Every structure is written in C-alpha cells, then in structure tokens.
C-alpha cells in the first residue's frame, strides 16, 4: 500500500479501493470465489437445510487480550451458526473504516480474520469496505454474515426443553466481558484476564455426533450473559430453571475484576462458550464429550429445567440463598460507592 493511513478515497470504489482489497484482503484470505470480485458470490448448493445469520461488531478497544475485532467477528458468526447445529460454510465480511485509521491496523485485523477463518475452516466469499470521515465512526466496525448447513436429523431449539433436562455450560463464564470492561475502565489490574473468543462448531459437532439426540438446544451467552440466555430458554420453553451458583465455573481473575467493578459475572458477555440444554440421562455423556475438547475442558452441569412458574430462573446462591435472575436491563454499570 502506498498510503500508511486510510483515506476517504479508499472507500470510493475506485482505484484506491481496488488496491486496498487486493493488497490487504485478497492476499490474506483470498480464494477463487472471492477473487472473482463480482457483485455477488455463487456457491454450490450443499445437501441439507441452510442456516443464515448476521452480526455487527463494534467492540472497543479493537485489540484486547485474547483477540481482536477481526477474530471476534469470525467467531461470533460461526458460533451463531453452530448453535443451531449448522456446519459453517462461508462468511461475508463488511468493514466500515474511520478515515485516518493506520493501514497497519487494518493489516493486523485482516490477518486475524484470515487466521480465524482458517482455524474454523470457513471461507470468505463476499466482502465490502467503506470509509467514513474522521469522527463519524470509531476506528472500525465489522459486519459478518454466515451461511451454514444443518445436517438432516438435527433439530435444535430452546422450545424443545423438557422438565428434568440439565443445563450445561461449556466452560468458565464472563471472561470476555470482564476483559473488555477492565480494559475500557483504564484500570491497571487486567493481568491474567483474557477474552475467551473461540469457534464452537467443532465442540458442537462432537456432541451432536457423540451423543445423538441428547441436546435439545445450544445457546451462546454473548451480550446479556448466562443469566439472560437462561431467561430466554425459560420463557421460550414455558418452564422454570434453577441453577446452582457454586457449580458455575469462573476464573478467579474474573471474579476479582467483577468485585472491583461491581459487576455480576452472570451478566457478562462470553464469546467462546455455550449453554446446552440436555436430556437428563445423557447429561454426563455430554459433559464428558465437552471435557474431551480443549474449548470445553471446564464444562459443568449448572442447573435443571423443571415445571414451575413459566419463564422464571432461580439461582441458588453460593451462600445457600435463593434469588430470581432477570434478563439484563440497562447498561452494566459500575457501582459508585
């Protein structure tokens, strides 16, 4: 690239745009479909039903311990596909850059996207770049859409939860949210904290293949955290859920950061964890399958679905008390005294 910062011209659709695309993106994650640079990508039709999803990424800071906005944009969309049991096929990646962003930063993000897609074995078949004047966006925003294929026989939906089902979480909670919030607060105790951003489709596939029919639903507890996802499962299934706080895995660093910032880890975002609703007789098997994979080593059974007040989630606290969990509302704000 001739320029070392992004200019409005790079989003004009003219020669500068072409240079940006060919030198930064095609070199890193180009493939025959993308390299055609036509108005839309033509993909072969796979067998099975199609899953389709889209998500925007505006994380601040754009680089954080454990990942960056690029890897997050890949993993987030791959995971949305995986939660319905889909095998991810292909993504589109669309950027909005703020004028003046160093080209070096874009190269880092593009490399990170390339690594994340290689790790997740998905291709990028469409993309776009726009540049807005300085101050009209904050550094970079990314939108990724994803296509996946749902194998025959896979029917995952939170509506399918039944009384007696167990609730599993695939690992420690709150890592991503705690990392971002401590970074943003400018507090200097972030040592040991890292985002958990990771693709989950291999974990999902090993469970769907290793314990056929065991899982009623997967959900990834991103924004709103585990508590909000549990409330959604309870309300969509018309059942009650009780979870046991003492059994929920959490890293000590995350717990400490939450104490200092006055946050509840149950409401913090996760970017590489899933919640599974599993039939009771298969819960141990699914837990074992999770433990067998690196991204599920700290998986645990944390609760149970039951008849009761529809939509209610009850937490048995570590102190032995009971409290209701509500969906996240308002911003997760720090305490002030």
């Amino acid at each position: 690239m001739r320029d070392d910062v992004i200019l409005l011209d790079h989003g004009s659709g003219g020669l500068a745009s072409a240079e940006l695309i060919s030198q930064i993106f095609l070199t890193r994650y180009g493939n025959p479909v993308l390299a055609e640079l036509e108005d839309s990508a033509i993909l072969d039709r796979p067998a099975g039903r199609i899953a389709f999803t889209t998500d925007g990424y505006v994380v601040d800071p754009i680089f954080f311990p454990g990942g960056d906005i690029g890897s997050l944009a890949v993993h987030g969309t791959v995971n949305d596909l995986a939660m319905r049991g889909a095998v991810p096929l292909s993504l589109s990646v669309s950027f909005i850059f703020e004028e003046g962003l160093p080209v070096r930063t874009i190269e880092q993000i593009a490399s990170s996207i390339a690594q994340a897609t290689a790790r997740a074995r998905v291709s990028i078949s469409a993309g776009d770049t726009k540049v807005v004047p300085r101050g009209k966006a904050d550094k970079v925003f990314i939108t990724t859409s994803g296509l996946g294929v749902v194998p025959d026989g896979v029917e995952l939906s939170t509506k399918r939860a039944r009384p007696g089902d167990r609730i599993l979480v695939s690992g420690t909670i709150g890592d991503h949210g705690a990392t971002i919030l401590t970074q943003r607060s400018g507090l200097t105790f972030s040592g040991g904290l890292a985002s958990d951003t990771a693709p989950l489709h291999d974990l999902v596939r090993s469970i769907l293949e290793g314990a056929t029919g065991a899982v009623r639903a997967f959900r990834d507890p991103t924004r709103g955290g585990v508590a909000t996802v549990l409330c959604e499962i309870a309300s969509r299934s018309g059942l009650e859920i009780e979870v046991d706080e003492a059994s929920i895995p959490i890293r000590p660093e995350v717990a400490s950061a939450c104490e200092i910032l006055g946050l509840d880890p149950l409401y913090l975002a996760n970017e590489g964890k899933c919640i599974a609703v599993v039939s009771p007789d298969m819960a141990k098997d699914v837990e074992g399958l999770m433990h067998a994979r690196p991204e599920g080593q700290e998986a645990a059974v944390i609760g149970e679905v039951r008849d009761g007040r529809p939509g209610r989630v009850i937490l048995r606290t570590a102190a032995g008390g009971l409290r209701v969990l509500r969906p996240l509302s308002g911003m997760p704000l720090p305490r002030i005294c």
Partner: protein
Amino acid sequence: MFPSPDLSGFRSRAAIDALVHELSLLVDRPMRFMEVCGTHTMAVARYGLRSLFPPRFELVSGPGCPVCVTAQSHVDAMIRLARIPGVTIATFGDMVRVPGSSGSLAHAMAEGARVEIVYSPTDALHLAREVSPDPVVFLAVGFETTAPAVAATILEAERTGVENLLVHPAHKLMPPALDCIMSGGAAVNGLLCPGHVSAVIGAKAYAPLAEGQGLPCVIGGFEPADILLALTLLARQVREGRSEVENAYPRAVSWEGNKRAREVMEAVFRPEDTEWRGLGVISGSGLTLREGFRDRDARTRFGVHPVPVADPPGCVCGEVLKGVKTPTDCPLFASRCTPQSPVGPCMVSGEGACAAHYLTDGPCHA
C-alpha cells in the same frame, strides 16, 4: 495482579448455615432492621439472603444509595449543566439514567450533550487535563466514602494547575440523615450500619443514635457471613434490651475511623444544608466547597442552582428511603416502573431498593 484478600471464610457455607440457624433462634418476636448502605442492599439481593431470614424478621433499605438520595432538584440542575454548550459532564454511570423532571442525562447525551462515564474522580481530572480544554464538571454524589477521594482530586487539580475541573457538589453526610429519620420515631428496631462509610467516620459516629435514641447499631461488612453476623448481633441486642454500637467489621472499621481521610475532606469541603430525596432539607447534611475552592463550583460558575420541584408523581422513593414503605408497596413497582423505564432513582441504580428488589425477588417476567 492486584491483591485479592482471601474472603472465602466469609462465604463458607458452614459459617453461613450456622449464622442462619443462630438468627432463627434469636428472633423470638417481630424484628425490623434497616440497612443504610447501597452495597449492603446489593449484597443481600445478590446472595439471596432474604430467602434465608426467619419468619417475623425483616430487613428494609434506608437512605444508603447515593443516586437514590439525590434530590430531584439536584438531578434537574445536573441535566441543565449538561445542556450548556462546551461543558463536559463526568459522572458515575448510575446517574446517567436517573429521570429528571424532563429527560435524563442519557436523553441530554442523545441530544448532543457531552457526558463521560467515569469510574473515579481521578478519571475526571484526567479528562480535564488531557482531553478537554473546556470545563469538565464532575457530579460529586456519594457519602463520606466518596467525598475524601473527590477532595484529594481537587487538591491535586490545584497543585497541578488544572483549572477547568469543576464539581457539582451533591455529597451527603450519613449521620445527620439517620438522626433525622430516627428522631421522627424509628420505624425499625436497629440499624445495620454501613461498612465503607464507617471506615471513614468511625464507629463512634453512631453513639448518639445508640445512646441518645436507644437504637441498636451494628456495623457490618459485605460478605454474606459479615451481614448475617451483624444481623444476629442486632437481634441479640433487641432480645436483651440493649442499644449499643457494636462493630462486626473490625477488619476495616475502627472506633475513630480514618482521621486522614476526614482531614482531606474537611480541607476542601464544609457542611451545608442540603435537600435529600424524600427527606427534605436536612441541616448540615451536605458538603459544599470551602471559600478557597469556590471558583470550582459549577453551580455558581454557570448560575445553575437547584430549584425545588416535586418528585415524580406516584413514586414513593422518599417513603422507601425512610424505611416506611417497601418497594412492593409502590403502585408503580414492576408495572410502570422497571429498570428499563425507571420512574424514580431507586429503580435505576443496582444499589437502589426498588431495582434490587425487582432484579432478584420478583417474578422473572412481570
């Protein structure tokens, strides 16, 4: 990594179970206590302690949430300040969504006001020094816990010549408010006294209430076992007909308190009469800047003074803060007033009695 004290003993199930059992043995008559610290309110909710209390035992919230006790007139003045072109407001996050007479700071932000959420007064100093050449107004809400840090920040601004850091003083002092509530005939049998505030003002600050007004006072920490221990001590005082100051949080609180913190606070602030939500004007219960720091008072700099105004219609926050009513006594609770669209401040802050009640005790979907 920052040091993290080992508090596991204060969370151990064995300790908690034993204290819950002891409490159930002690409560032989109706007992009603008040916690006067937002952090206690949150901890009780967060650990689900209410579900562990014996029958005939009640813990109500008092004026312990700094956002909640901020009078409507002050909230309005803060929003008016935010709307002045060129002014940047630096505030703790909880203030942003508190409804004023028309709109909130969040609304003012959406209309273009500059409002920065900060985690400490030093962040506000940083904004004034490094980011904004224009006035940065820190909304100084909070009790004796926050005031020394704000005072130290102002001294630092003086020392380093940062002239564009201003404050809207809205600090509150806990003892005058407690005295005011209790002198009207206490609706409670004792006080669970705030751990953080007491670390500054010292356990001795409650002696007049205990001795003068016959009100048992126990200072408690914030772990489940701390809180339960303090509550058993309160119940024991009631049973034995005693009213004393007891310190169940000696690892942080002394009889004398933190003299150094009080000196810093007193170097910068002096008491003034101030309005509390629901309690009205209480003499000497607020803090204003001393003469030498007057040009940092955003109220005088911009001529924005609190104008008395009625609380939001239907909202009984004031009665809740006095411990006379509980959140569920409010007709708007969980119907018109929820954390998504709060009517009063008690539903905004996680330390507010209504929000704590809504978020942890009520039905999952109202």
